[in-house]
């Protein structure tokens, strides 16, 4: 309390006054606290409400169209015969190629940059470039894929070209995520390992990777789920929207789920919008499943 050190009568009166002022001030602070509490809560609600609205709309639109035939049919001119089989298989093929490629190259790059590379200007340039690449718009990767894989390497608008383009797109993200996970392993543990006579490779395999594996895996899966949802680069490299057979090899023409959904939703017939809704439900379900897998693996490999 202010002024409580003096003892005269007048100062006691002053004390009461300051007490009142303090009380008033206190009320003001409490109101402020409540106000901002409400602001933050409403901000959170806003996001959730938007998500629920979206989910609700899609479920209403698409749920009725989601049945076994939808999974088993190819694209068709008639909405009631349209299915997602080719697109789903195309996406799975693409991810099946992209996932191991990005994981191996990405983790190896991250290990090199964190554990081996000396702090020279070259490694700093590489580092800065990787971070910048992680923010490059996906359509730019599509153009790169078109030039490099489709035209120069003559892969055509094939699954392989799509998967390699996606690999380029996802790599910087996986590298950055893996680097962060590797950096989170305490230096003291590396020192403990080196002090016992371990070399760099042994330290990486036995100390660094086990401790950072959960983080690396989570980052990888989350960035792969971004690749699943990408449409622009695939359109650029020429993935087709209408295909009525399954891919039979790496060089087959293909389509992917987001492209298929985009095509349906741009049809004039109202029924196709429902088909698109059903497709979105399947895509969302796949993304959720991958995120759930990421959480599961993180919990499983989390350091004990």
């Amino acid at each position: 309390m202010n002024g409580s050190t003096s003892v005269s009568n007048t100062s006691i009166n002053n004390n009461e006054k300051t007490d009142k002022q303090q009380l008033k001030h206190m009320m003001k602070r409490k109101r402020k606290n409540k106000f901002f509490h409400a602001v933050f809560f409403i901000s959170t609600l806003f996001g959730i409400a938007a998500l629920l609205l979206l989910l609700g709309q899609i479920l209403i639109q698409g749920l009725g169209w989601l049945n076994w035939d939808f999974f088993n049919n190819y694209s068709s001119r008639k909405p009631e015969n349209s299915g997602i089989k080719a697109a789903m298989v195309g996406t799975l093929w693409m991810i099946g190629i992209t996932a191991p490629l990005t994981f191996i190259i990405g983790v190896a790059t991250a290990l090199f940059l964190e554990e081996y590379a000396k702090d020279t200007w070259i490694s700093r340039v590489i580092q800065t470039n990787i971070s910048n690449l992680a923010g490059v718009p996906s359509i730019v990767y599509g153009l790169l894929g078109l030039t490099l894989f489709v035209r120069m390497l003559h892969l055509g608008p094939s699954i392989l070209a799509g998967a390699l383009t996606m690999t380029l797109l996802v790599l910087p993200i996986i590298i950055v995520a893996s680097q962060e996970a590797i950096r989170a392993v305490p230096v003291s543990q590396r020192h403990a390992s080196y002090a016992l006579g371990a070399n760099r490779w042994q330290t990486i395999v036995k100390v660094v990777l086990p401790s950072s594996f959960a983080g690396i895996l989570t980052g990888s899966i989350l960035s792969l789920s971004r690749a699943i949802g990408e449409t622009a680069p695939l359109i650029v490299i020429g993935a087709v929207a209408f295909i009525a057979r399954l891919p039979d090899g790496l060089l087959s023409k293909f389509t992917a789920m987001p492209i298929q959904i985009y095509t349906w939703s741009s049809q004039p017939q109202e029924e196709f919008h429902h088909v698109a809704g059903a497709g979105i439900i399947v895509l969302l379900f796949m993304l959720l499943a991958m995120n759930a897998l990421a959480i599961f693996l993180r919990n499983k490999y989390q350091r004990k």
Partner: protein
Amino acid sequence: MTIVNIDQLHLYYGTFHALKNINMNINEKSITAFIGPSGCGKSTLLRTLNRMNDMIKGVRIEGSVNIKGENIYAQDVNVELLRKEIGMVFQQPNPFPKSIYENVAYGSKIHGITNRKQLDEIVETSLKNAALWDEVKDDLKKSAYGLSGGQQQRLCIARALAVNPEILLMDEPTSALDPISTLKIEELIQDLKQRYTIVIVTHNMQQAARVSDETAFFLNGEVIEMDDTATLFSNPNDQKTEDYISGRFG
């Protein structure tokens, strides 16, 4: 018997002259303490003995460190083998996020021992030598992170002993521990002296006086004085040593 001989050693961190003309002999199966104020170079010298300074960017070394007659800074030295011979215990207990067993077995596995029975034996002996066996023998599969700070530090000592070193370097091993754990580690250090040469860096002068046979006093990168511990604390030659041990600075 001298086991470590340091001859005209200079160490630079970039342009900073961190160790200046160190000449020192360390006796076999004895405890040598390094004391001195923060930043005096005592930990730096300790880390030159197993070449952990190699990992710091911009370190340059002149002079030689001879261990059992061989210069460990010679061209053809196998650093991994050197570190197997010279164990180290750090200031903060730093067990791996693995089981107690795996922590102790780590070094042996690194050096190629795969036989389960042999590993079991090494783990048991090392834990016994580190005075931890009785407390953990039923929990070998449990995480090392469940142990108390003092137990973790003894586990780190066991881990260092498991690769059968000749010299054990300890960098302020008790500064993160409570008094009871500190006492246990000090008793352990006394025991270990029978088999190992121990070099210990400590901030705590009482600790140096309690545990060591010889003490070196460091100031600004120089060894001011090194002597028999009893002599150094009761009858120092140098005025600076006397000022430090009587608490006038540092």
